[in-house]
């Protein structure tokens, strides 16, 4: 049959086009599958189990991102489909000319797309399983989670979801393709390859103005973002970050859309540069690509910035936490949130142990005060957008100096000595700007009122105290006699135990039994603290990074695909340049420059974003990052 033979020959001739199409679909299936299988990943399941969280919650948390992924993946398929349609219009024109009717051509196209799609789907699932398994290994290593027994997993849910999603896309794509065959006149199909899109030229001054505006927007975003992170107590829920995100997106978009044109139009003023080799051609080529892909470039750039920031932050923060955690709990075991009366019972349990002579113990009780966090800083330094954990309306608790110093001594730190009428303030380790504000107020003679007497602040100590998790609380250290005037703050007594020769599982069990008996108290230990911290990090970082990397991969593949398609499409231009006497070397260099520049610009801008964010976090943590 002549049609079949024709189709086969055409297919062979456009093998490269088909390969591009096919691998794009494979890649997109892989991305979609990996994203949706996150909640079934063994590492994730294990993390959720340890944290005691239902792993389905991940799907809920990622609701928004999943729309984004679906959108990008659909765009990827549509884009590559458009490419194949564009490349094959000529061929369809020939079929029509040969007398094949439009319905038949459309049907052929539809079946072809479906066939390629089905094979790509299967291959995509397999690569998705491999990819997400490898990602899990990477994260398990990075976050120091124990490896699960199984690395690779077939997530039935995601396989089905991917199947349904792609069926829908392919039906859409098939209908679109058939439309585009029947909508076009024969003549326009036959000359399809020759027409190239009209190139829009922009007004020079508009470019300059918009370029300056977009840089200003970016700078403004940096400024507010930096202040929101570094200058008050960092609160991730601060609504100002929505504004910052919007400014970053708008600014980056503007930079790609006009900023680059602005830079190039300046470069074009320099004759020595402009008239050298293929420079002008290369610049205009880059500009054309950047301009027509601004949205994707912006998304890739922002995602890249998020990934760089979170990875650097994660790595640095982990070592920071390790240091702090080492000094947080002086003894192996602690029971928090007890009533002062409970102490006797717990001491009895501890003393009943055969190792009793080696027992070391500490007790510390917090007392209620009228002082709130906002009293500790100057009025102009209060910020209504501060963290809810550290709301300025919280009242501060107080501890007696001798109990406090006993804990410090157990940690091997110098005691704090307070004169008559002087107190100290203990802040957490993780809010340096807040500590600085208190120091500033103290330097200006801050005085506080406790049970009718007035005290000045002699010293501000910034360190985690007892538990890292709650270490950002601030606490007043007051002379012992002042404590006598205050009321205990509910269940606010903490007990700490350890045997001089190390840990003892029997003590651990007995203490837990006692907690059950009195029906109060929160158990923790050095080991527990470490595990808790890790859970928090893992739970925050793992899904976040996983999603960011997948999204970046999605954006990256859109950009890569466009590069590839663009190069294939402009083969005619390169032949033209060769005819004009351009050497192969010059042409290759131009292509290389286009590709590297195209990828380098979003990366460079992303690095700039991350540097600003990281330097703000560094300020927040007092230069300890």
């Amino acid at each position, binding site marked *: 049959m002549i049609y079949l033979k024709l189709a086969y020959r055409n297919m062979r001739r456009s093998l490269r086009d088909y390969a591009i199409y096919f691998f794009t679909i494979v890649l997109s299936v892989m991305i979609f599958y990996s994203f949706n299988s996150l909640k079934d990943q063994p590492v994730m399941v294990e993390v959720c189990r340890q944290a005691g969280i239902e792993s389905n919650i991940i799907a809920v948390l990622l609701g928004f991102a999943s729309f984004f992924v679906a959108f990008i993946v659909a765009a990827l398929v549509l884009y590559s489909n458009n490419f194949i349609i564009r490349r094959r219009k000529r061929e369809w024109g020939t079929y029509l000319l040969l007398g094949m009717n439009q319905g038949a051509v459309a049907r052929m196209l539809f079946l072809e797309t479906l066939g390629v799609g089905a094979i790509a789907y299967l291959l995509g699932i397999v690569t998705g399983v491999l990819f997400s398994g490898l990602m899990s290994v990477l994260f398990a290593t990075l976050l120091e989670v124990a490896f699960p027994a199984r690395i690779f997993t077939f997530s039935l849910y995601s396989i089905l979801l991917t199947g349904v999603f792609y069926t829908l896309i392919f039906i859409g794509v098939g209908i679109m393709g058939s439309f585009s065959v029947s909508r076009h006149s024969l003549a326009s199909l036959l000359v399809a390859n020759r027409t190239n899109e*009209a190139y829009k030229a922009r007004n020079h001054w508009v470019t300059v103005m918009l370029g300056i505006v977009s840089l200003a927007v970016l700078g403004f975003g940096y400024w507010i973002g930096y202040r929101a992170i570094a200058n008050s107590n960092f609160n991730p829920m601060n609504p100002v970050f929505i504004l910052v995100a919007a400014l970053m997106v708008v600014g980056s978009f503007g930079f790609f859309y006009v900023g680059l044109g602005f830079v190039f139009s300046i470069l074009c003023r320099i004759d020595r540069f402009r*008239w050298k080799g293929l420079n002008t051609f290369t610049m205009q080529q880059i500009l054309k690509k950047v301009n027509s892909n601004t949205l994707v470039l912006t998304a890739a750039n922002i995602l890249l910035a998020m990934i760089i920031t979170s990875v650097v932050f994660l790595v640095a923060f982990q070592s920071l936490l390790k240091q702090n955690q080492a000094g947080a709990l002086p003894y192996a075991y602690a029971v928090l949130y007890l009533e002062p009366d409970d102490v006797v019972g717990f001491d009895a349990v501890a003393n009943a142990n055969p190792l009793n002579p080696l027992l070391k113990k500490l007790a510390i009780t917090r007392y209620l005060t009228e002082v709130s966090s906002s009293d500790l800083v100057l009025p102009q330094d209060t910020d209504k957008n501060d963290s809810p954990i550290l709301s300025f309306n919280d009242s501060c608790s107080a501890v007696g100096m001798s109990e406090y110093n006993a804990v410090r001594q157990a940690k091997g730190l110098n005691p704090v000595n307070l004169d008559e009428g002087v107190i100290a303030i203990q802040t957490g380790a993780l809010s340096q700007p807040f500590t600085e504000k208190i120091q500033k107020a103290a330097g200006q003679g801050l005085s506080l009122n406790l049970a009718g007497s007035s005290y000045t602040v002699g010293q501000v100590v910034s360190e985690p105290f007892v538990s890292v998790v709650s270490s950002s609380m601030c606490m007043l250290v007051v002379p012992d006699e002042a404590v006598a005037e205050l009321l205990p703050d509910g269940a606010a007594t903490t007990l700490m135990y350890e045997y001089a020769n190390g840990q003892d599982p029997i003590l651990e069990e007995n203490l837990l039994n006692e907690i059950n008996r009195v029906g109060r108290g929160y158990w923790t230990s050095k080991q527990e603290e470490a595990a808790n911290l890790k859970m928090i990090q893992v739970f925050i970082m793992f899904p976040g990074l996983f999603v960011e990397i997948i999204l970046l991969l999605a954006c990256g593949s859109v950009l890569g695909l466009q590069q590839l398609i663009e190069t294939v499409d402009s083969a005619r231009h390169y032949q033209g*340049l060769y005819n*004009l*006497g351009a050497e*192969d070397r010059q042409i290759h260099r131009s292509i290389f420059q286009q590709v590297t520049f195209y990828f380098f610009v979003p990366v460079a801008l992303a690095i700039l974003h991350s540097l600003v964010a990281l330097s703000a976090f560094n300020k927040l943590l007092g230069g300890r990052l």
Partner: protein
Amino acid sequence: MESILQISDLTKVYGFRGNHYPALNGLSLGVGKGEFLGVMGPSGSGKTTLLNIIATIDRGSRGVVMINGQDTQRMRRGDLTRFRREHLGFIFQDYNLLDTLTLRENICLPLSIANQTPAEIKARLSSVTQTFGLHDVLDKFPAQVSGGQKQRAAAARAIISNPTMVLADEPTGALDSSSAKVLLQTLEKMNQSLGITILMVTHDATAASYCNRIVFLKDGRIISELRRAAQQPRRAFFDQILSVVALMGEKEAE
């Protein structure tokens, strides 16, 4: 007259294994410096093939092509590029201008490729824009100008590097008759006042009548030749061309 192009016994065979098709069949041709040569012939007679070989974009299967005393059939790819840059200019039917560059940048491209200094480029540019009357459209993009202007820009690009010879494959093919006339007059002026050798493939007898010699190709061979006599009016030359074309058509019919 000093010879600039000397082709002897050029053969070009397309296809492979028993499936040969000779597009050029032992063709010989000499072109003198300063000639305006037209190449005519029915479709498939090998005109584009001949032009591409002269342009060093393609190679012949047998035979010798000497341009300015150099045998282009025996040059390496790198040398060919340099040779093309220094000796040849091209005008294509579909202009082949880069749509992202302004006409100014398009016209100057061969010079920037050859790494000329900005001062030289500027000087050359102002001289060719004068010849082609492109002053007002230099900073426009190809999509913003007419077909005739595009083709004149392409012609300007072809001569900006002072080539020994300009090759044009149906340069008026996509133009309406008045734009075609402007282009042809400019080519004629280029040939007469600047002494540039031009080799133009065309189907159109009107276009051919601007030349001073015409060779007729058929089945890869030159079957006839016409030379415009000194002072011969273009109209008379045109009639002469038409009669040769008609004669060839009759032979075809037999």
